[in-house]
């Protein structure tokens, strides 16, 4: 594998992808990545300064002409930690409404628990503030609809944090798939496996639900909204459509510790092109880790590991001749002879890299830069909102299918 991709290389490659005619139409956000930076300072607030919010800050802090002017969290220890990380220029708030009112930032990054995404996003958009909201979009169909409706009405930027949209490896894979490298995609298999209890330390029992909100249905849809939505977004993008329906099952079969959300989920999504996404997630075994396997008659791609395999190794002429002879009932000489075992050819069986470079960004860095660039240039891209919207709708369908144990169809009353 070759050396790391620096920012210049990255933007160059993204620009090439953005310019590729087959790709540009379906991925307009690629233009944001290579957008020219201007001198205008963007004022940004972070709402939700827990682990994810602070992770996003690591990328935000290096963006030129970005002033992280305010931070907000209703959990005091997190707010204090954020203050020392972000710096004294960021004014701290416990209530986001007060922050929006007083600071009037250009944009906010929302990294709160899922059940809070909707009302914070809607309030911010209505206040004329651009929004980057972590995935999933919201906990209910109604909330998602209301958020997207507000985005359309206000004309403000509304990103959902699906970083694979900005992962150059994924984008290169989409390009190769659209060029037919593995033939028409006939199935996608995806999985996300971990082996831990998915809990966070709680300083006192009365904070259990606040800190471990992912464990309870009041705040979360568990593995579906916290992990599956990423891979569902990828499948939607590969098939270039949303699923028709889904069925699935789940249970708590290992972490029986009082949690409400399932510790394993298994789903089949049916797409209109008669293809499927087969998905499973569990947190009691990590042997297989996470992967998205894209299968077609000519090859296979594994997008997380960034590799592809040809379905059939190139045929050996002599062997093909032999098969031909047998099929035609001919007994004759076939040619033999080739190179000695040269281990350098081992690459053929281990697969080819989709991008033969070291990738240091899973898309999060580029995503934050693109969001800030769009805010700076007031460039509203509803396609990126649609990606987040549709992946969350499909995610919620999966959750509903599991909970009700029935087939759930794509809703008819969507606003986009």
């Amino acid at each position, binding site marked *: 594998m070759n050396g790391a991709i620096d920012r210049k290389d990255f933007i160059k490659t993204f620009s090439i992808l953005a310019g590729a005619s087959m790709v540009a139409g379906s991925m307009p956000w690629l233009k944001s990545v290579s957008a020219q930076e201007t001198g205008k300072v963007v004022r940004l607030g972070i709402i939700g300064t827990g682990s994810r919010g602070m992770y996003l800050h690591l990328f935000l802090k290096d963006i030129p002409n970005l002033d992280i002017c305010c931070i907000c969290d209703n959990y005091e220890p997190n707010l204090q930690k954020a203050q020392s990380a972000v710096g004294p220029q960021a004014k701290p708030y416990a209530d986001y409404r007060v922050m929006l009112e007083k600071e009037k930032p250009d944009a906010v990054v929302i990294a709160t628990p899922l059940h809070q995404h909707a009302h914070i996003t809607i309030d911010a958009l209505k206040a004329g503030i651009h929004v980057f909201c972590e995935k999933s979009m919201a906990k209910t169909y109604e909330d998602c609809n209301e958020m997207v409706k507000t985005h359309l009405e206000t004309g403000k930027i509304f990103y959902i944090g699906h970083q694979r949209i900005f992962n150059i490896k994924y984008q290169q894979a989409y390009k190769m798939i659209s060029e037919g490298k593995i033939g028409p995609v006939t199935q996608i298999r995806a999985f996300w496996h971990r082996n831990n209890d998915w809990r966070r330390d709680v300083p006192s029992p009365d904070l259990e639900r606040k800190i471990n909100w992912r464990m309870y249905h009041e705040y979360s849809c568990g593995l579906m909204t916290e992990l599956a939505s990423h891979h569902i977004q990828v499948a939607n993008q590969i098939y270039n459509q949303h699923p028709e329906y889904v069925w699935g099952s789940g249970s708590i079969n290992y972490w029986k510790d009082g949690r409400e959300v399932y510790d394993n989920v298994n789903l089949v999504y049916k797409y209109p092109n008669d293809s499927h996404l087969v998905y499973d997630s569990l947190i009691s075994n990590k042997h297989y880790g996470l992967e998205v396997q894209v299968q077609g008659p000519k090859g296979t791609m594994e997008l997380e590991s960034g590799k592809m395999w040809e379905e059939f190794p190139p045929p*050996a002429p002599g062997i093909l001749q032999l098969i031909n002879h047998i099929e035609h009932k001919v007994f004759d000489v076939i*040619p033999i002879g080739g190179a000695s075992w040269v281990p350098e050819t081992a690459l053929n069986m281990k697969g080819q890299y989709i991008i033969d470079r070291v990738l240091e960004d899973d898309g999060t860095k580029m995503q934050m830069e693109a969001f800030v660039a769009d805010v700076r240039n007031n460039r509203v891209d509803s396609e990126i909102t649609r990606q987040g919207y549709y992946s969350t709708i499909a995610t919620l369908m999966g959750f509903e299918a599991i909970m009700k144990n029935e087939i759930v169809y794509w809703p008819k009353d969507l606003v986009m």
Partner: protein
Amino acid sequence: MIPRHIHYLCLLEKLINRMSSVAYRNFFSMGTRIDIILPDCDDESADSISLLLQNELNRIEEKISIYIPESEFSKINKSAFSEPVTTDSEILNLLKELIVLSGKTMGYFNFTLGTFLRSLKENPALADDKEKLLEMVSSTGVHFIDLNSDVSTVSFSSEHVFIDSGGFGKGFALDRIKNVMNRSVFPSFFISFGESSVLACGSHPYGDSWKTGIRNIFKEEEYIFSFNMRDEFLSVSGITPQNLKKYGTGHIIDPLTGEPVTRFLHSAVTGKEGVTTEVLSTALIVSPDKTRDTIMEGFPECSAVVYEYNNNNFIPEIVYSKKPLNDERSNR
């Protein structure tokens, strides 16, 4: 409406075709494409045997590849000069077999040249210093390997000894493939390992053997030799002008002098064992013309042909040939 008798004839033809169907599977293993031909085999059985072979080849590769740091050979290469390295009986028996073969080929098969080959690759100018080459190869060889069967250990008494599986790996793999196939239900099959090593058992469905031919690389329609193979291995080796361009002069080395072989010699060997045929196909290229008879006396079950090209054509005089060959010398 199709007449009933025609309908039955169609069914019969389908049945015959089904019975004479040939299953073909291929996959990559050990850096090489494996092609498997199974006459009269259904798809499910072909999948099943193909998987067994893949698993077996993966297992072997993890033992003998010098490119896998945890392999048995990597472990031995890393530490056997410092201290005895414990290994398993399969590797110990393989090393014993290789040491015997090195002796039987008068040292023209030397699988301990790894360090030397690497030096030559890194510094091609070494090829011009004959004294240095001789000095370097003299510090390699099987006499520097000590095997202790009682405690299953391997030691090297020269720090320059480095086992390179490139000269016998495919043959060893084909021997193991034959073991797997012998336990299966298939009486006839044809397996190619990167087209330079072949295992042909039983017979072609429309013949009494499997016919394989060695082509003139400059005249593809012409066969230099052909073999009627039955329950045999075939291994071919050679140096072509293209090899020299691609790999430089260090592709095949005379292990007694350290000097690269520059004649465009080729060999084809058939025999009853994979490792033996592969070892011989290389040894016969590097050994001097006058020694080949002596070497082949030690391998009565093997047949061999050595032939030569010049820069742009096949030289019709066969350099060496040992009968009885099941050859037809067809199309010449």
